Protein backbone atom coordinates (compact mmCIF):
# COMPACT_ATOMS: atom_id res chain seq x y z
CA UNK A 1 0.00 0.00 0.00
CA UNK A 2 2.86 2.35 0.88
CA UNK A 3 4.35 2.00 -2.58
CA UNK A 4 1.06 3.20 -4.06
CA UNK A 5 0.93 6.24 -1.79
CA UNK A 6 4.59 7.03 -2.46
CA UNK A 7 3.96 7.02 -6.20
CA UNK A 8 0.64 8.89 -6.29
CA UNK A 9 2.04 11.82 -8.33
CA UNK A 10 3.24 9.37 -10.97
CA UNK A 11 -0.08 7.53 -10.97
CA UNK A 12 -1.83 10.84 -11.51
CA UNK A 13 -0.55 10.78 -15.08
CA UNK A 14 -0.06 7.04 -15.54
CA UNK A 15 -3.68 6.09 -14.80
CA UNK A 16 -5.40 8.34 -17.38
CA UNK A 17 -2.67 7.65 -19.97
CA UNK A 18 -2.95 3.89 -19.56
CA UNK A 19 -6.73 4.24 -19.46
CA UNK A 20 -6.68 6.21 -22.70
CA UNK A 21 -4.59 3.67 -24.59
CA UNK A 22 -6.70 0.73 -23.41
CA UNK A 23 -10.05 2.40 -24.13
CA UNK A 24 -10.20 1.52 -27.87
CA UNK A 25 -9.42 -2.11 -26.97
CA UNK A 26 -12.10 -2.30 -24.28
CA UNK A 27 -14.60 -0.61 -26.58
CA UNK A 28 -14.66 -3.83 -28.55
CA UNK A 29 -16.23 -5.57 -25.54
CA UNK A 30 -19.26 -3.29 -25.68
CA UNK A 31 -20.48 0.15 -24.66
CA UNK A 32 -21.25 -0.70 -21.03
CA UNK A 33 -17.80 -2.16 -20.39
CA UNK A 34 -16.12 0.82 -22.02
CA UNK A 35 -18.28 3.27 -20.04
CA UNK A 36 -17.53 1.46 -16.78
CA UNK A 37 -13.81 1.43 -17.66
CA UNK A 38 -13.74 5.16 -18.42
CA UNK A 39 -15.60 5.98 -15.21
CA UNK A 40 -13.26 3.79 -13.13
CA UNK A 41 -10.16 5.34 -14.73
CA UNK A 42 -11.42 8.91 -14.26
CA UNK A 43 -12.61 8.13 -10.74
CA UNK A 44 -9.22 6.65 -9.82
CA UNK A 45 -7.26 9.54 -11.29
CA UNK A 46 -9.55 12.00 -9.47
CA UNK A 47 -8.98 10.12 -6.20
CA UNK A 48 -5.22 10.26 -6.91
CA UNK A 49 -5.45 13.99 -7.51
CA UNK A 50 -7.39 14.57 -4.28
CA UNK A 51 -5.02 12.33 -2.26
CA UNK A 52 -1.94 14.10 -3.62
CA UNK A 53 -3.53 17.46 -2.82
CA UNK A 54 -4.40 16.39 0.72
CA UNK A 55 -0.84 15.06 1.24
CA UNK A 56 0.60 18.37 0.08
CA UNK A 57 -1.73 20.42 2.27
CA UNK A 58 -0.85 18.25 5.29
CA UNK A 59 2.88 17.75 4.87
CA UNK A 60 4.08 20.43 2.46
CA UNK A 61 5.51 20.43 -1.04
CA UNK A 62 5.99 17.04 -2.71
CA UNK A 63 8.94 16.70 -5.06
CA UNK A 64 8.44 13.50 -7.06
CA UNK A 65 11.21 12.35 -9.36
CA UNK A 66 10.55 9.68 -11.96
CA UNK A 67 13.14 6.93 -11.88
CA UNK A 68 14.64 7.33 -8.41
CA UNK A 69 13.99 5.39 -5.24
CA UNK A 70 14.59 8.08 -2.66
CA UNK A 71 14.13 11.81 -2.46
CA UNK A 72 17.86 12.24 -1.75
CA UNK A 73 18.58 11.03 -5.32
CA UNK A 74 16.69 13.91 -6.93
CA UNK A 75 19.93 15.61 -7.89
CA UNK A 76 22.42 13.00 -9.19
CA UNK A 77 25.94 13.48 -7.76
CA UNK A 78 27.49 13.81 -11.22
CA UNK A 79 24.97 16.31 -12.63
CA UNK A 80 26.63 19.48 -11.39
CA UNK A 81 23.82 20.21 -8.94
CA UNK A 82 21.12 20.11 -11.64
CA UNK A 83 18.10 17.83 -11.29
CA UNK A 84 18.07 16.16 -14.70
CA UNK A 85 15.18 13.73 -14.43
CA UNK A 86 11.47 14.35 -14.92
CA UNK A 87 10.36 16.04 -11.72
CA UNK A 88 6.88 16.85 -10.49
CA UNK A 89 6.86 19.65 -7.95
CA UNK A 90 3.51 19.87 -6.20
CA UNK A 91 3.13 22.70 -3.72
CA UNK A 92 -0.20 23.99 -2.28
CA UNK A 93 -0.79 26.05 -5.45
CA UNK A 94 -0.51 22.92 -7.61
CA UNK A 95 -2.63 21.04 -5.08
CA UNK A 96 -5.31 23.71 -5.39
CA UNK A 97 -5.39 23.28 -9.17
CA UNK A 98 -5.35 19.47 -8.86
CA UNK A 99 -8.51 19.59 -6.74
CA UNK A 100 -10.28 21.61 -9.43
CA UNK A 101 -9.20 19.23 -12.22
CA UNK A 102 -10.14 16.15 -10.14
CA UNK A 103 -13.67 17.36 -9.37
CA UNK A 104 -14.54 18.68 -12.82
CA UNK A 105 -12.77 15.79 -14.59
CA UNK A 106 -14.94 13.20 -12.89
CA UNK A 107 -18.18 15.16 -13.38
CA UNK A 108 -17.64 15.70 -17.11
CA UNK A 109 -16.87 12.03 -17.69
CA UNK A 110 -20.00 10.97 -15.82
CA UNK A 111 -21.98 13.45 -17.91
CA UNK A 112 -20.36 12.33 -21.18
CA UNK A 113 -21.21 8.67 -20.63
CA UNK A 114 -24.85 9.66 -20.93
CA UNK A 115 -24.69 12.61 -23.30
CA UNK A 116 -22.66 10.76 -25.95
CA UNK A 117 -24.95 7.72 -25.82
CA UNK A 118 -26.52 8.32 -29.24
CA UNK A 119 -23.33 9.25 -31.08
CA UNK A 120 -20.78 7.09 -32.85
CA UNK A 121 -16.98 7.04 -32.46
CA UNK A 122 -17.11 6.90 -28.68
CA UNK A 123 -13.93 4.83 -28.34
CA UNK A 124 -11.93 7.68 -29.89
CA UNK A 125 -13.91 10.24 -27.95
CA UNK A 126 -13.21 8.76 -24.53
CA UNK A 127 -9.57 8.09 -25.43
CA UNK A 128 -9.21 11.79 -26.18
CA UNK A 129 -11.06 12.75 -22.99
CA UNK A 130 -8.60 10.73 -20.90
CA UNK A 131 -5.64 12.21 -22.80
CA UNK A 132 -7.01 15.70 -22.18
CA UNK A 133 -7.35 14.93 -18.46
CA UNK A 134 -3.79 13.50 -18.36
CA UNK A 135 -2.47 16.57 -20.17
CA UNK A 136 -4.10 18.96 -17.72
CA UNK A 137 -2.87 16.99 -14.68
CA UNK A 138 0.63 17.05 -16.17
CA UNK A 139 0.52 20.81 -16.81
CA UNK A 140 -0.46 21.34 -13.19
CA UNK A 141 1.94 18.90 -11.55
CA UNK A 142 5.18 19.29 -13.48
CA UNK A 143 8.13 21.27 -12.22
CA UNK A 144 9.93 21.18 -15.55
CA UNK A 145 9.43 23.67 -18.38
CA UNK A 146 9.91 21.18 -21.23
CA UNK A 147 7.54 18.72 -19.57
CA UNK A 148 5.04 21.53 -19.28
CA UNK A 149 5.33 22.12 -23.03
CA UNK A 150 4.75 18.39 -23.68
CA UNK A 151 1.65 18.27 -21.48
CA UNK A 152 0.43 21.55 -22.98
CA UNK A 153 0.66 19.95 -26.42
CA UNK A 154 -1.10 16.77 -25.25
CA UNK A 155 -3.99 18.77 -23.82
CA UNK A 156 -4.12 21.12 -26.83
CA UNK A 157 -4.17 18.34 -29.43
CA UNK A 158 -6.69 16.23 -27.50
CA UNK A 159 -8.77 19.38 -26.93
CA UNK A 160 -8.69 20.36 -30.62
CA UNK A 161 -9.72 16.84 -31.70
CA UNK A 162 -12.59 16.91 -29.19
CA UNK A 163 -13.74 20.35 -30.36
CA UNK A 164 -13.92 18.97 -33.90
CA UNK A 165 -15.45 15.69 -32.75
CA UNK A 166 -19.01 16.38 -33.92
CA UNK A 167 -17.89 17.84 -37.31
CA UNK A 168 -21.33 19.56 -37.59
CA UNK A 169 -21.22 20.37 -41.32
CA UNK A 170 -17.61 21.45 -41.01
CA UNK A 171 -18.21 24.19 -38.44
CA UNK A 172 -16.86 22.14 -35.53
CA UNK A 173 -13.94 20.99 -37.67
CA UNK A 174 -13.14 24.64 -38.43
CA UNK A 175 -13.32 25.51 -34.71
CA UNK A 176 -11.03 22.57 -33.91
CA UNK A 177 -8.59 23.71 -36.59
CA UNK A 178 -8.51 27.24 -35.17
CA UNK A 179 -7.92 25.88 -31.67
CA UNK A 180 -5.17 23.55 -32.92
CA UNK A 181 -3.45 26.21 -35.05
CA UNK A 182 -3.40 28.86 -32.33
CA UNK A 183 -2.38 26.35 -29.66
CA UNK A 184 0.45 25.12 -31.87
CA UNK A 185 1.76 28.63 -32.56
CA UNK A 186 1.48 29.43 -28.84
CA UNK A 187 3.15 26.15 -27.92
CA UNK A 188 5.99 26.72 -30.40
CA UNK A 189 6.68 30.23 -29.08
CA UNK A 190 6.57 28.82 -25.56
CA UNK A 191 9.16 26.23 -26.65
CA UNK A 192 11.39 29.00 -28.06
CA UNK A 193 11.22 30.61 -24.61
CA UNK A 194 12.20 27.31 -22.99
CA UNK A 195 15.14 27.06 -25.41
CA UNK A 196 16.33 30.56 -24.53
CA UNK A 197 16.38 29.69 -20.84
CA UNK A 198 17.97 26.28 -21.38
CA UNK A 199 20.75 27.84 -23.47
CA UNK A 200 21.65 30.13 -20.59
CA UNK A 201 21.05 28.04 -17.47
CA UNK A 202 21.65 24.45 -18.66
CA UNK A 203 18.46 23.32 -17.03
CA UNK A 204 14.78 22.88 -17.75
CA UNK A 205 13.79 22.68 -14.10
CA UNK A 206 11.74 25.68 -12.97
CA UNK A 207 13.31 25.81 -9.52
CA UNK A 208 16.88 25.72 -10.91
CA UNK A 209 16.14 28.42 -13.50
CA UNK A 210 14.35 30.58 -10.89
CA UNK A 211 17.37 30.20 -8.62
CA UNK A 212 19.85 31.23 -11.34
CA UNK A 213 17.71 33.86 -13.07
CA UNK A 214 19.76 36.93 -14.08
CA UNK A 215 17.06 38.74 -16.08
CA UNK A 216 19.16 39.14 -19.19
CA UNK A 217 17.71 40.43 -22.45
CA UNK A 218 17.03 36.84 -23.54
CA UNK A 219 15.26 36.16 -20.25
CA UNK A 220 12.93 39.07 -20.89
CA UNK A 221 12.17 37.81 -24.40
CA UNK A 222 11.50 34.34 -22.94
CA UNK A 223 9.23 35.90 -20.31
CA UNK A 224 7.16 37.68 -22.97
CA UNK A 225 6.90 34.49 -25.05
CA UNK A 226 5.68 32.54 -21.99
CA UNK A 227 3.38 35.32 -20.88
CA UNK A 228 1.54 35.84 -24.17
CA UNK A 229 1.35 32.13 -25.04
CA UNK A 230 -0.27 31.36 -21.70
CA UNK A 231 -2.47 34.47 -21.72
CA UNK A 232 -3.71 33.44 -25.18
CA UNK A 233 -4.36 29.88 -23.97
CA UNK A 234 -6.44 31.17 -21.07
CA UNK A 235 -8.49 33.35 -23.42
CA UNK A 236 -7.41 36.85 -22.37
CA UNK A 237 -8.67 39.67 -24.59
CA UNK A 238 -7.57 40.51 -27.31
CA UNK A 239 -6.32 36.93 -27.84
CA UNK A 240 -9.69 35.42 -26.96
CA UNK A 241 -11.13 34.99 -30.47
CA UNK A 242 -10.67 31.21 -30.48
CA UNK A 243 -12.63 30.82 -27.25
CA UNK A 244 -16.22 31.36 -28.47
CA UNK A 245 -15.53 29.33 -31.62
CA UNK A 246 -14.12 26.34 -29.75
CA UNK A 247 -16.25 26.42 -26.62
CA UNK A 248 -19.44 26.70 -28.67
CA UNK A 249 -18.67 23.79 -30.98
CA UNK A 250 -17.17 21.29 -28.51
CA UNK A 251 -19.51 18.80 -26.82
CA UNK A 252 -20.70 20.54 -23.63
CA UNK A 253 -18.88 18.28 -21.17
CA UNK A 254 -15.67 18.90 -23.11
CA UNK A 255 -16.25 22.63 -22.98
CA UNK A 256 -16.55 22.36 -19.20
CA UNK A 257 -13.12 20.72 -19.08
CA UNK A 258 -11.61 23.09 -21.65
CA UNK A 259 -12.34 25.77 -19.05
CA UNK A 260 -10.16 23.82 -16.59
CA UNK A 261 -7.51 23.40 -19.31
CA UNK A 262 -7.51 27.19 -19.82
CA UNK A 263 -7.20 27.63 -16.07
CA UNK A 264 -4.17 25.32 -16.05
CA UNK A 265 -2.60 27.79 -18.50
CA UNK A 266 -3.62 30.61 -16.19
CA UNK A 267 -1.93 28.79 -13.31
CA UNK A 268 1.23 28.48 -15.42
CA UNK A 269 1.07 32.20 -16.21
CA UNK A 270 0.99 32.96 -12.50
CA UNK A 271 3.78 30.44 -11.86
CA UNK A 272 5.97 32.16 -14.45
CA UNK A 273 5.31 35.63 -13.00
CA UNK A 274 5.59 34.72 -9.31
CA UNK A 275 8.08 31.84 -9.22
CA UNK A 276 10.16 31.55 -12.39
CA UNK A 277 10.78 35.30 -12.55
CA UNK A 278 9.94 35.91 -8.87
CA UNK A 279 11.90 38.82 -7.46
CA UNK A 280 13.46 39.57 -10.87
CA UNK A 281 10.83 40.96 -13.21
CA UNK A 282 9.28 44.34 -12.35
CA UNK A 283 6.09 43.26 -10.52
CA UNK A 284 4.41 46.64 -10.87
CA UNK A 285 4.77 46.65 -14.67
CA UNK A 286 3.76 43.01 -15.07
CA UNK A 287 0.95 43.44 -12.52
CA UNK A 288 -0.49 46.34 -14.52
CA UNK A 289 -0.18 44.43 -17.80
CA UNK A 290 -2.19 41.60 -16.19
CA UNK A 291 -4.71 44.10 -14.80
CA UNK A 292 -5.23 45.70 -18.22
CA UNK A 293 -5.71 42.29 -19.85
CA UNK A 294 -8.15 41.47 -17.03
CA UNK A 295 -10.21 44.63 -17.45
CA UNK A 296 -10.36 44.20 -21.23
CA UNK A 297 -11.37 40.55 -20.82
CA UNK A 298 -14.06 41.36 -18.26
CA UNK A 299 -15.66 44.16 -20.21
CA UNK A 300 -15.36 42.94 -23.80
CA UNK A 301 -16.28 39.39 -22.73
CA UNK A 302 -19.53 40.40 -21.07
CA UNK A 303 -20.58 42.98 -23.67
CA UNK A 304 -20.02 40.48 -26.47
CA UNK A 305 -21.99 37.86 -24.52
CA UNK A 306 -25.20 39.88 -24.17
CA UNK A 307 -26.22 40.02 -27.88
CA UNK A 308 -25.40 36.32 -28.52
CA UNK A 309 -28.23 33.99 -29.51
CA UNK A 310 -26.25 30.75 -29.28
CA UNK A 311 -26.31 29.77 -25.59
CA UNK A 312 -22.87 28.15 -25.65
CA UNK A 313 -21.27 31.04 -27.51
CA UNK A 314 -22.82 33.35 -24.93
CA UNK A 315 -21.41 31.26 -22.10
CA UNK A 316 -18.02 31.16 -23.84
CA UNK A 317 -17.86 34.96 -23.85
CA UNK A 318 -18.76 34.88 -20.16
CA UNK A 319 -15.85 32.48 -19.60
CA UNK A 320 -13.60 35.15 -21.14
CA UNK A 321 -15.19 37.76 -18.89
CA UNK A 322 -14.73 35.66 -15.74
CA UNK A 323 -11.08 34.99 -16.65
CA UNK A 324 -10.78 38.77 -16.49
CA UNK A 325 -11.74 38.70 -12.79
CA UNK A 326 -8.99 36.17 -12.08
CA UNK A 327 -6.44 38.24 -14.00
CA UNK A 328 -7.61 41.37 -12.19
CA UNK A 329 -7.32 39.78 -8.75
CA UNK A 330 -3.89 38.27 -9.35
CA UNK A 331 -2.64 41.35 -11.25
CA UNK A 332 -3.64 43.61 -8.37
CA UNK A 333 -2.02 41.10 -6.01
CA UNK A 334 1.26 41.22 -7.93
CA UNK A 335 1.28 45.01 -8.21
CA UNK A 336 0.15 45.69 -4.64
CA UNK A 337 2.64 43.25 -3.10
CA UNK A 338 5.48 45.20 -4.69
CA UNK A 339 4.11 48.59 -3.68
CA UNK A 340 5.73 50.49 -0.85
CA UNK A 341 2.66 52.73 -0.41
CA UNK A 342 0.05 50.01 -0.01
CA UNK A 343 -0.43 47.46 2.73
CA UNK A 344 0.73 43.94 1.83
CA UNK A 345 -2.61 42.63 3.02
CA UNK A 346 -4.32 44.28 0.04
CA UNK A 347 -2.11 42.34 -2.35
CA UNK A 348 -2.56 39.08 -0.47
CA UNK A 349 -6.35 39.48 -0.36
CA UNK A 350 -6.54 40.34 -4.08
CA UNK A 351 -4.41 37.30 -4.85
CA UNK A 352 -6.61 35.07 -2.69
CA UNK A 353 -9.72 36.50 -4.39
CA UNK A 354 -8.30 35.84 -7.84
CA UNK A 355 -7.31 32.28 -6.96
CA UNK A 356 -10.60 31.54 -5.20
CA UNK A 357 -12.38 32.76 -8.32
CA UNK A 358 -10.47 30.20 -10.42
CA UNK A 359 -11.94 27.40 -8.32
CA UNK A 360 -15.42 28.90 -8.19
CA UNK A 361 -15.46 29.60 -11.90
CA UNK A 362 -14.41 26.07 -12.80
CA UNK A 363 -17.32 24.74 -10.75
CA UNK A 364 -20.15 27.08 -11.73
CA UNK A 365 -19.07 27.47 -15.35
CA UNK A 366 -18.74 23.69 -15.58
CA UNK A 367 -22.28 23.45 -14.22
CA UNK A 368 -23.59 26.02 -16.71
CA UNK A 369 -21.98 24.30 -19.70
CA UNK A 370 -23.46 20.99 -18.55
CA UNK A 371 -26.95 22.53 -18.35
CA UNK A 372 -26.43 23.84 -21.89
CA UNK A 373 -25.44 20.28 -22.83
CA UNK A 374 -28.70 18.93 -21.42
CA UNK A 375 -30.68 21.45 -23.47
CA UNK A 376 -28.77 20.40 -26.61
CA UNK A 377 -29.29 16.74 -25.76
CA UNK A 378 -33.04 17.09 -25.27
CA UNK A 379 -33.95 19.88 -27.70
CA UNK A 380 -31.26 19.51 -30.35
CA UNK A 381 -30.55 23.25 -30.57
CA UNK A 382 -28.43 25.88 -28.89
CA UNK A 383 -30.34 28.76 -30.47
CA UNK A 384 -32.01 30.80 -27.74
CA UNK A 385 -34.56 32.15 -30.24
CA UNK A 386 -35.86 28.62 -30.76
CA UNK A 387 -36.09 27.68 -27.07
CA UNK A 388 -38.66 28.44 -24.39
CA UNK A 389 -40.91 27.00 -21.71
CA UNK A 390 -38.50 24.21 -20.78
CA UNK A 391 -38.95 24.91 -17.07
CA UNK A 392 -42.28 23.08 -17.19
CA UNK A 393 -40.66 19.74 -17.96
CA UNK A 394 -36.99 20.18 -16.95
CA UNK A 395 -37.27 21.39 -13.39
CA UNK A 396 -33.98 19.99 -12.09
CA UNK A 397 -32.04 21.37 -15.03
CA UNK A 398 -33.71 24.73 -14.46
CA UNK A 399 -32.75 24.73 -10.76
CA UNK A 400 -29.14 23.79 -11.59
CA UNK A 401 -29.00 26.51 -14.23
CA UNK A 402 -30.34 29.06 -11.73
CA UNK A 403 -27.68 28.09 -9.19
CA UNK A 404 -24.92 28.43 -11.79
CA UNK A 405 -26.32 31.68 -13.20
CA UNK A 406 -26.67 33.32 -9.79
CA UNK A 407 -23.16 32.20 -8.87
CA UNK A 408 -21.55 33.61 -12.03
CA UNK A 409 -23.42 36.90 -11.53
CA UNK A 410 -21.98 37.14 -8.02
CA UNK A 411 -25.30 36.91 -6.21
CA UNK A 412 -25.07 35.81 -2.55
CA UNK A 413 -25.01 33.27 -1.02
CA UNK A 414 -23.40 31.40 -3.94
CA UNK A 415 -19.66 30.87 -4.37
CA UNK A 416 -19.12 33.50 -7.08
CA UNK A 417 -20.11 36.20 -4.63
CA UNK A 418 -17.50 35.24 -2.04
CA UNK A 419 -14.55 35.44 -4.44
CA UNK A 420 -15.86 38.54 -6.18
CA UNK A 421 -16.29 40.27 -2.80
CA UNK A 422 -12.63 39.60 -2.01
CA UNK A 423 -11.63 40.99 -5.42
CA UNK A 424 -13.91 44.06 -5.11
CA UNK A 425 -12.73 45.06 -1.65
CA UNK A 426 -9.01 44.65 -2.26
CA UNK A 427 -9.17 46.16 -5.75
CA UNK A 428 -11.14 49.14 -4.43
CA UNK A 429 -8.31 49.97 -2.05
CA UNK A 430 -5.77 49.57 -4.86
CA UNK A 431 -7.70 51.58 -7.46
CA UNK A 432 -11.44 52.32 -7.01
CA UNK A 433 -12.09 52.61 -10.76
CA UNK A 434 -11.06 48.96 -11.28
CA UNK A 435 -13.53 47.83 -8.61
CA UNK A 436 -16.33 49.89 -10.18
CA UNK A 437 -15.68 48.29 -13.59
CA UNK A 438 -15.70 44.84 -11.95
CA UNK A 439 -19.07 45.54 -10.32
CA UNK A 440 -20.59 46.90 -13.55
CA UNK A 441 -19.44 43.74 -15.34
CA UNK A 442 -21.18 41.65 -12.66
CA UNK A 443 -24.44 43.55 -13.25
CA UNK A 444 -24.15 42.97 -17.00
CA UNK A 445 -23.45 39.28 -16.33
CA UNK A 446 -26.65 39.06 -14.31
CA UNK A 447 -28.58 40.80 -17.11
CA UNK A 448 -27.19 38.36 -19.65
CA UNK A 449 -28.14 35.28 -17.63
CA UNK A 450 -31.61 36.66 -16.91
CA UNK A 451 -32.05 36.74 -20.68
CA UNK A 452 -30.83 33.15 -21.03
CA UNK A 453 -33.02 31.95 -18.16
CA UNK A 454 -36.09 33.64 -19.59
CA UNK A 455 -35.41 32.43 -23.13
CA UNK A 456 -34.82 28.80 -22.21
CA UNK A 457 -37.02 28.07 -19.23
CA UNK A 458 -39.75 30.70 -18.94
CA UNK A 459 -42.91 31.19 -20.97
CA UNK A 460 -45.56 28.73 -22.06
CA UNK A 461 -44.68 25.25 -23.25
CA UNK A 462 -43.72 25.47 -26.92
CA UNK A 463 -45.42 22.88 -29.15
CA UNK A 464 -42.07 21.46 -30.34
CA UNK A 465 -40.97 20.82 -26.76
CA UNK A 466 -44.35 19.73 -25.42
CA UNK A 467 -43.05 16.30 -24.40
CA UNK A 468 -39.43 17.11 -23.71
CA UNK A 469 -38.02 15.04 -20.84
CA UNK A 470 -35.75 15.83 -17.91
CA UNK A 471 -32.05 14.96 -18.25
CA UNK A 472 -30.98 11.33 -17.72
CA UNK A 473 -29.84 10.43 -14.19
CA UNK A 474 -26.03 10.40 -14.79
CA UNK A 475 -26.26 13.92 -16.22
CA UNK A 476 -28.35 15.06 -13.23
CA UNK A 477 -25.84 13.52 -10.80
CA UNK A 478 -22.91 15.28 -12.55
CA UNK A 479 -24.72 18.61 -12.45
CA UNK A 480 -25.90 17.94 -8.89
CA UNK A 481 -22.34 17.43 -7.60
CA UNK A 482 -21.24 20.75 -9.07
CA UNK A 483 -24.39 22.56 -7.87
CA UNK A 484 -23.88 21.30 -4.30
CA UNK A 485 -20.29 22.56 -4.39
CA UNK A 486 -21.45 25.96 -5.67
CA UNK A 487 -23.80 26.26 -2.68
CA UNK A 488 -21.37 24.84 -0.10
CA UNK A 489 -18.47 27.03 -1.22
CA UNK A 490 -20.83 30.01 -1.02
CA UNK A 491 -22.05 29.25 2.50
CA UNK A 492 -18.66 28.18 3.91
CA UNK A 493 -16.25 30.40 1.97
CA UNK A 494 -13.89 31.02 4.90
CA UNK A 495 -13.30 27.29 5.33
CA UNK A 496 -12.37 26.95 1.66
CA UNK A 497 -10.15 30.03 1.82
CA UNK A 498 -8.38 28.80 4.96
CA UNK A 499 -7.95 25.21 3.79
CA UNK A 500 -7.14 25.67 0.10
CA UNK A 501 -6.87 29.24 -1.14
CA UNK A 502 -4.63 30.81 1.54
CA UNK A 503 -1.97 28.04 1.31
CA UNK A 504 -2.05 28.35 -2.49
CA UNK A 505 -1.58 32.13 -2.33
CA UNK A 506 1.26 31.79 0.20
CA UNK A 507 2.96 29.17 -1.97
CA UNK A 508 2.72 31.42 -5.01
CA UNK A 509 4.22 34.38 -3.17
CA UNK A 510 6.99 32.31 -1.53
CA UNK A 511 9.14 31.53 -4.58
CA UNK A 512 12.17 30.88 -2.36
CA UNK A 513 10.22 28.10 -0.68
CA UNK A 514 9.52 26.51 -4.08
CA UNK A 515 13.20 26.68 -5.03
CA UNK A 516 14.43 25.25 -1.74
CA UNK A 517 11.84 22.43 -1.85
CA UNK A 518 13.53 21.16 -5.03
CA UNK A 519 17.14 22.14 -4.44
CA UNK A 520 17.09 21.56 -0.70
CA UNK A 521 18.41 25.02 0.05
CA UNK A 522 21.26 24.50 -2.43
Amino acid sequence: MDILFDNLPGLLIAIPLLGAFLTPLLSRAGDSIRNAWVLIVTGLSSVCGLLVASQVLETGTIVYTFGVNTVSNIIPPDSGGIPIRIIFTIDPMNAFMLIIAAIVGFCITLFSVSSMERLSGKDGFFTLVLLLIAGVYGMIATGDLFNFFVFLEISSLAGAALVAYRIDKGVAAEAGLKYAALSTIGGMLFLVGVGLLFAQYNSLNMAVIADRMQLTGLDIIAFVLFFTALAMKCGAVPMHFWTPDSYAMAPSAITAFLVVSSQASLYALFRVCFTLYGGQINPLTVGWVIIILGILSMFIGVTMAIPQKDVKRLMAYHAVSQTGYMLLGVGVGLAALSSTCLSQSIGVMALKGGLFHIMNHAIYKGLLFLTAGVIMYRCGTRNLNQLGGLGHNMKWTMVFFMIGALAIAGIPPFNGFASKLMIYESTFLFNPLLAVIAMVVSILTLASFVKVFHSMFMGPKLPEYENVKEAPTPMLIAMGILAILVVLFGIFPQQVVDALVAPAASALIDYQGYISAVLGGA
Partner: protein
Amino acid sequence: MIDSFTLSTGFGAWNAVFWVIAFLIAFIIGWLIWSRGEKTYDTSTSATASFLSGNAEPEKEAVHIRAGNLYWGYTDALSGYYRFIKPLHTGNLSDYFLAYLFVTALVLIVVVVLK
Protein backbone atom coordinates in the same frame (compact mmCIF):
# COMPACT_ATOMS: atom_id res chain seq x y z
CA MET B 1 -20.66 28.70 15.58
CA ILE B 2 -21.96 31.59 13.49
CA ASP B 3 -18.39 32.85 13.10
CA SER B 4 -17.52 29.76 11.12
CA PHE B 5 -19.78 31.06 8.35
CA THR B 6 -18.05 34.46 8.26
CA LEU B 7 -15.72 35.26 5.37
CA SER B 8 -13.16 37.80 6.45
CA THR B 9 -11.98 39.91 3.54
CA GLY B 10 -9.39 41.70 5.65
CA PHE B 11 -11.28 44.96 5.31
CA GLY B 12 -14.81 43.73 5.96
CA ALA B 13 -16.73 40.53 6.49
CA TRP B 14 -19.51 38.56 4.90
CA ASN B 15 -21.74 36.02 6.56
CA ALA B 16 -23.98 33.80 4.47
CA VAL B 17 -26.19 32.93 7.46
CA PHE B 18 -27.15 36.56 8.01
CA TRP B 19 -28.01 36.80 4.33
CA VAL B 20 -30.27 33.75 4.53
CA ILE B 21 -31.91 35.12 7.72
CA ALA B 22 -32.44 38.54 6.06
CA PHE B 23 -33.90 36.81 3.02
CA LEU B 24 -36.32 34.83 5.20
CA ILE B 25 -37.37 37.97 7.10
CA ALA B 26 -38.00 39.80 3.81
CA PHE B 27 -40.00 36.81 2.56
CA ILE B 28 -42.11 36.72 5.74
CA ILE B 29 -42.78 40.50 5.55
CA GLY B 30 -43.78 40.11 1.90
CA TRP B 31 -46.06 37.22 2.72
CA LEU B 32 -47.67 39.16 5.60
CA ILE B 33 -48.41 42.13 3.31
CA TRP B 34 -49.78 39.81 0.62
CA SER B 35 -51.93 37.88 3.11
CA ARG B 36 -53.54 41.12 4.39
CA GLY B 37 -54.58 42.11 0.86
CA GLU B 38 -58.18 42.39 -0.45
CA LYS B 39 -59.67 38.92 -0.77
CA THR B 40 -63.19 39.78 -1.84
CA TYR B 41 -62.70 40.96 -5.44
CA ASP B 42 -64.20 38.90 -8.21
CA THR B 43 -61.53 37.52 -10.56
CA SER B 44 -64.14 36.63 -13.18
CA THR B 45 -64.76 40.28 -14.11
CA SER B 46 -62.55 42.55 -16.18
CA ALA B 47 -61.41 44.33 -13.03
CA THR B 48 -58.28 42.18 -12.95
CA ALA B 49 -57.57 42.22 -16.70
CA SER B 50 -54.46 43.88 -18.08
CA PHE B 51 -55.10 47.15 -19.95
CA LEU B 52 -53.14 47.17 -23.21
CA SER B 53 -54.26 50.49 -24.74
CA GLY B 54 -57.70 49.05 -25.30
CA ASN B 55 -56.43 46.04 -27.26
CA ALA B 56 -57.47 42.54 -26.33
CA GLU B 57 -55.00 40.68 -24.16
CA PRO B 58 -53.55 37.73 -26.06
CA GLU B 59 -53.76 34.28 -24.55
CA LYS B 60 -50.86 33.79 -22.12
CA GLU B 61 -50.10 30.42 -23.66
CA ALA B 62 -49.60 32.11 -27.04
CA VAL B 63 -46.98 34.59 -25.88
CA HIS B 64 -43.27 33.88 -25.47
CA ILE B 65 -40.80 36.70 -25.89
CA ARG B 66 -37.80 35.21 -27.69
CA ALA B 67 -34.19 36.00 -26.89
CA GLY B 68 -33.77 38.15 -30.00
CA ASN B 69 -36.39 40.58 -28.69
CA LEU B 70 -34.71 41.10 -25.33
CA TYR B 71 -32.38 44.00 -24.51
CA TRP B 72 -32.90 45.72 -27.87
CA GLY B 73 -32.78 49.03 -25.96
CA TYR B 74 -29.42 48.17 -24.47
CA THR B 75 -27.86 47.10 -27.76
CA ASP B 76 -29.40 50.08 -29.53
CA ALA B 77 -28.01 52.51 -26.94
CA LEU B 78 -24.56 50.94 -27.34
CA SER B 79 -24.81 50.53 -31.12
CA GLY B 80 -21.73 52.72 -31.64
CA TYR B 81 -19.67 50.46 -29.39
CA TYR B 82 -21.00 47.32 -31.04
CA ARG B 83 -20.31 48.74 -34.54
CA PHE B 84 -16.67 48.94 -33.45
CA ILE B 85 -16.29 45.73 -31.44
CA LYS B 86 -18.27 43.19 -33.49
CA PRO B 87 -16.27 43.55 -36.73
CA LEU B 88 -13.09 42.78 -34.77
CA HIS B 89 -14.49 39.27 -34.24
CA THR B 90 -14.02 38.27 -37.87
CA GLY B 91 -13.72 34.51 -37.35
CA ASN B 92 -10.63 34.67 -39.59
CA LEU B 93 -7.70 32.66 -38.25
CA SER B 94 -5.18 35.13 -39.74
CA ASP B 95 -6.70 37.88 -37.60
CA TYR B 96 -6.38 35.65 -34.52
CA PHE B 97 -2.65 35.26 -35.23
CA LEU B 98 -2.34 38.98 -35.83
CA ALA B 99 -3.91 39.81 -32.45
CA TYR B 100 -1.60 37.33 -30.73
CA LEU B 101 1.54 38.72 -32.37
CA PHE B 102 0.39 42.30 -31.74
CA VAL B 103 -0.02 41.63 -28.01
CA THR B 104 3.34 39.81 -27.90
CA ALA B 105 5.08 42.82 -29.46
CA LEU B 106 3.23 45.28 -27.22
CA VAL B 107 3.99 43.38 -24.00
CA LEU B 108 7.64 43.08 -25.06
CA ILE B 109 7.89 46.85 -25.55
CA VAL B 110 6.14 47.60 -22.24
CA VAL B 111 8.22 45.12 -20.24
CA VAL B 112 11.51 46.32 -21.78
CA VAL B 113 10.70 50.03 -21.43
CA LEU B 114 9.43 49.71 -17.87
CA LYS B 115 11.98 47.12 -16.76
